[in-house]
């Protein structure tokens, strides 16, 4: 029997190959996913262990306590310990000219074994005021060995120790904070629990060396600088406001002859409560376990897409085997005549499926491994920040899972056709191989199941859509997904009942007169099950793609509208507020330590950009409004009334703004209990060290005007003057031309502000950002679904070539009675386009509905959802499907046209 199976496989090699490709793509997908997951895990493992260099042990402080310097010293004094370094979490901003970097800060390791970095050039810092930079960071900052970089540090100086700053670093730190310190209590900062002042100083650091991080220990933060321990400690004390420095971990190198276990026991005994002692490997494993949660989520999601691709492949396979069995009806019947029993026939089909599945899976696996390796090689050449492994590590799971899944899917898909093989009566061998009967048995249970699933699914979906707002968000989403999945399965199960009808109806409408079209339409009806399966395979992919792009389009529109109400202007540029945001009346007009000033010159520069309609300088201070004992604080934006009405996205938000009024946002008006027309008192505030607010300047009486303005208050420059606050503009508001492309304008603005320390936000920017996010996500998802669509198209080609083979005699007859080669090819092209087109149109419609349902369920909490039809995407899907349907018919069409009319006369 096996010999016979093999012989039959050889005869059907072409068809089996086409089916095999489908399963191959599916398994390659699974393999790549698993390997990529493994690479991610591996990369995180490497990164974790890299930061430990060659440490023997690592002592981890508890989350809330860390390790004190004494704890680290205690470890150092343990017998057998060669070196210990405490690691703390410390970073700083480095500036060189207008360029900035935010590196991790480390100190030189006390033992080479504890040092993950390599010195490339120069030397290690030997005294305070020296620094070693990662070479790529130095390049970015435009500095070399011997140049100077600066860092700005702020430290809290208690009032009774005003001269404390610089005490420990006098020889190096060029303290610039004197001006601010002088003005510290000029305005009478209100008393808090500890009096004092934030003092900013600029330190200069000489670059004495360049290093590299070959193992990617600091890959996540873009590299680490090395400074002298003295500097590191002082900076750490800035951050702790004088409290003792805590280390997050201590890495330990042991003497060569020390016994790991005994040293370990000693350190553990002396370690503070909550601290954990691990070897490097133990630590890497534990850390990776935490990190790979992320990798697992990634793998799970992508495997979801892979399973869709496999499902589609299963449809294609089931189709192929159905036809193979139909074609071998005579052979099978003959076998039955000579004594083969049903079990043997079924086994023969299943063995064939197993061989096909295993072979295709193995090829797919090899393809997947090759693809993954190719990607790694390409990425390796690109020189990413993250060091990737040079070769894929093929785990047992990555090999076994695709093989097993691919083979199983194939065998399961062949089960129904195998049952079909057993139904062949021995008598069939004696009947002339005539045209197969057209009548299909009505499959009542199938119809019932399909209807039930569809109805139940739609019900759940509607429940989620309509009731979603009253429900818990996650619950609504869950119900919606369940409903969507159920109804979709129902639609797919029922496809055999309605898809062929739709196909032939479409064919009848489209090809009323042409003989080719008529033949094509009639042909699609001949085997409804196969037509349905082929269309369905495509329908799955198209539905999901259409759903995603509809959801994305709806999300885009909805979020755009939401943002318009959330952000007052298109683009908002602001300078970071130093901790003393409001310059005091007696203070200097300009803070010299702030590198970027928002002035008219910069405003004019932005105004020059194509697409900006208006640029307005705005002063923003913290303000407090009091009325009848109620008090509310919020940002007070100051700009002339006409300018406000011009630049705001909704000009009526500034309606009623004049010298005697202040615009109050609705939210704050509610807090205050004020209405338009009420008189309120308005004053400036400043922050104290605890983050509390302290009033400053004069309080003025103004008439409140409550508008839709989003946040805080709006007033005119006159009001600001009356408040006795002399602040410089620290924001710019921009309005864009209505027809400008936000992506272009925003990136132009960002370019113009590239070398400054200002930040950019605003409706347009957010719009661009979320649009990028949505578009990227959409592209990724569509790319992942692409595999399913490609498999489905292979299915279309497969079905068409099977039709060609099956209808050999018919094609020859048609040729004999006068069908031209072109007409014959045309018939197949129309058939392919019909099957693919109907799958694509129905998929688009279904996807549109599901996309809307999803958008309403997910976005409903945000307010009104705009249902959008992504016409461009849908048209693209249609064109691709139709084109592919036509393309799929090319090879089968050629084969059919080669059929000689003589074959019509052949008897079997």
């Amino acid at each position, binding site marked *: 029997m096996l010999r016979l199976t093999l012989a039959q496989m050889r005869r059907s090699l072409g068809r089996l190959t086409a089916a095999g490709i489908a399963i191959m793509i599916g398994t390659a997908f699974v393999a790549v996913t698993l390997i990529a997951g493994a690479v991610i895990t591996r990369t995180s493992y490497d990164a974790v262990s890299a930061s430990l260099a060659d440490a023997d042990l690592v002592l981890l402080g508890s989350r809330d306590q860390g390790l004190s310097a004494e704890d680290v010293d205690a470890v150092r004094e343990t017998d057998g310990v060669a070196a210990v370094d405490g690691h703390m979490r410390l970073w700083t901003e480095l500036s060189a000219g207008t360029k900035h970097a935010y590196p991790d800060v480390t100190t030189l390791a006390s033992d080479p074994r504890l040092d993950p970095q390599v010195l490339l050039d120069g030397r290690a810092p030997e005294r305070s005021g020296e620094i070693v930079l990662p070479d790529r960071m130095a390049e970015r900052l435009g500095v070399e060995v011997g140049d100077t970089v600066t860092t700005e540090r702020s430290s809290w100086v208690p009032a009774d120790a005003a001269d404390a700053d610089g005490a420990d670093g006098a020889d190096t730190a060029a303290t610039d904070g004197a001006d601010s310190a002088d003005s510290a209590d000029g305005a009478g900062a209100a008393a808090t629990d500890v009096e004092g002042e934030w003092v900013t100083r600029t330190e200069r650091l000489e670059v004495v060396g360049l290093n590299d991080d070959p193992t990617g220990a600091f890959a996540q933060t873009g590299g680490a600088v090395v400074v002298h321990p003295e500097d590191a400690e002082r900076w750490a004390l800035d951050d702790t406001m004088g409290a003792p420095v805590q280390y997050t971990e201590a890495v330990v190198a042991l003497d060569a002859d020390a016994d790991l276990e005994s040293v370990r026991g000693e350190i553990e005994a002396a370690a503070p409560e909550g601290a954990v002692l691990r070897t490097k490997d133990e630590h890497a494993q534990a850390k990776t376990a935490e990190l790979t949660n992320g990798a697992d989520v990634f793998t799970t999601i992508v495997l979801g897409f892979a399973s869709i691709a496999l499902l589609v492949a299963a449809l294609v396979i089931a189709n192929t085997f159905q036809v193979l069995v139909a074609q071998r009806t005579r052979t099978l019947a003959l076998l039955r005549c000579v004594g083969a029993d049903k079990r043997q026939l079924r086994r023969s089909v299943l063995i064939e499926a197993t061989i096909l599945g295993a072979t295709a899976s193995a090829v797919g696996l090899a393809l997947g491994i090759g693809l993954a390796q190719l990607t790694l090689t390409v990425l390796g050449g690109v020189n990413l920040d993250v060091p990737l492994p040079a070769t894929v590590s093929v785990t047992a799971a990555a090999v076994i899972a695709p093989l097993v899944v691919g083979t199983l899917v194939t065998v399961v898909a062949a089960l129904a056709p195998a049952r079909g093989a057993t139904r062949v009566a021995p008598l069939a061998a004696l009947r002339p191989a005539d045209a197969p009967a057209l009548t299909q048995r009505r499959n009542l249970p199938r119809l019932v199941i399909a209807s039930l699933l569809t109805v139940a699914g739609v019900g759940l979906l509607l429940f989620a859509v309509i009731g979603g707002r009253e429900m818990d968000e996650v619950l609504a989403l869950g119900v919606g997904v369940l409903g969507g999945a159920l109804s979709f399965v129902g639609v797919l199960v029922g496809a055999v009942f309605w898809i062929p009808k739709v196909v032939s109806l479409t064919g009848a409408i489209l090809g009323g007169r042409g003989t080719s079209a008529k033949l094509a339409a009639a*042909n699609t009806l001949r085997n409804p099950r196969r037509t349905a399966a082929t269309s369905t395979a495509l329908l799955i992919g198209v539905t999901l793609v259409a759903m995603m792009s509809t959801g994305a389009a709806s999300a885009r529109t909805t979020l755009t509208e939401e943002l318009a109400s959330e952000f007052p202007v298109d683009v908002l540029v602001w300078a970071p507020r130093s901790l003393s945001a409001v310059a005091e009346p007696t203070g200097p007009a300009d803070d010299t330590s702030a590198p970027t000033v928002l002035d008219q010159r910069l405003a004019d520069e932005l105004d020059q950009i194509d697409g900006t309609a208006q640029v307005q300088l705005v002063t923003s201070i913290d303000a407090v409004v009091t009325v009848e004992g109620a008090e509310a604080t919020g940002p007070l934006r100051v700009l002339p009334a006409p300018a406000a009405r011009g630049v705001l996205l909704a000009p009526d938000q500034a309606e009623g703004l004049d010298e005697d009024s202040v615009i109050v946002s609705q939210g704050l008006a509610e807090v205050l209990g004020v209405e338009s027309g009420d008189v309120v008192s308005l004053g400036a505030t400043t922050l104290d060290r605890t983050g509390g607010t302290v009033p400053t300047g004069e309080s003025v009486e103004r008439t409140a005007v409550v508008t839709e303005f989003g946040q805080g208050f709006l007033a005119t420059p006159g009001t600001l003057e009356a408040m006795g606050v002399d602040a410089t503009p620290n924001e710019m508001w921009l309005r864009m031309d209505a027809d400008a492309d936000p992506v272009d304008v925003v990136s132009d603005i960002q370019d113009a502000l590239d070398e400054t320390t200002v930040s950019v936000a605003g409706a347009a920017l957010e719009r661009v950002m979320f649009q990028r996010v949505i578009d990227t996500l959409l592209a990724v998802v569509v790319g992942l679904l692409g595999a399913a669509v490609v498999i489905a198209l292979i299915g279309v080609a497969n079905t068409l070539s099977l039709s060609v083979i099956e209808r050999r005699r018919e094609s020859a007859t*048609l040729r004999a009675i*006068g*069908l*031209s080669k072109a007409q014959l090819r045309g018939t197949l092209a129309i058939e392919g386009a019909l099957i693919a087109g109907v799958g694509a149109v129905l998929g688009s419609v279904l996807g549109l509905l599901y996309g809307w349902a999803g958008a309403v369920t997910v976005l409903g909490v945000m307010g009104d959802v705009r249902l959008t039809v992504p016409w461009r995407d849908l048209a693209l899907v249609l064109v691709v499907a139709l084109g592919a349907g036509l393309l799929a018919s090319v090879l089968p069409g050629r084969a059919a046209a080669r059929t000689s009319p003589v074959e019509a006369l052949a008897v079997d």
Partner: protein
Amino acid sequence: MDSTTATPSGHAPASGAPAAAAVRARGLRKVYGSGEAAVNALADVDIDFAAGAFTAIMGPSGSGKSTLMHLLAGLDSATSGKAYLGSTEITGLGDKELTRLRRDRVGFVFQSFNLLPMFTAEQNIVLPLELAGARVDPAWMDTLVQTLGLADRLTHRPSELSGGQQQRVAIARALIAKPDVVFADEPTGNLDSRAGAQVLSFLRRSVRELGRTVIMVTHDPSAAAYADRVVLLADGRIAGDITDPTPESVLAGLDALRSLDEPEAAMR
């Protein structure tokens, strides 16, 4: 016409000189394969088939009957020699012209009917006209349907028809475009004798009453007896010619072929 000299038997063509030959072959040769394995399926055949006549081709299995028919109908290309349909030399035509020719001037009846299963009897009958983009002549259609007794079967699909009915539909399909000649390769091969007899008498009626030309390949002497003339083939050559055949005369002719080893001597 010099078919007389060309026939090895030296026999004169049937019943005097026909008005015109519908189909002619001159020096027609077909070789399958090459070298050692070459098979001379047809060896320099010269023959005329009269218009308005029903001719049967007979001969032992492998004698080249089907090959001759394929070449005459333009379904296959000759190795050398010429075949004419009326005044058109078909041996020199390309696929496009041959397709047009088959569409307009040739009809086929196959042993296994070869109806399209998804179309009704009527749709099958008018298919050649549809392919040609021509209109159905209702009177001719009616004549065919009446003559072939298909009036109450037109809306049935092939799977709902008996073999004899299917073959009658196939004959109607072959005649609908009023072709110059209808070729039939063992049209009764898949039918029982009663249905076969019916089909044969329809073929004969279509010649006698409808004025068509029919060339039929058959193995059955009693089928051949329905024809006006029987051409005998042996080893790729014309080996005999029987006018107004009866089952007995045909059998005798075939026996004569079998009793002789040398093809050259196959005459009577």
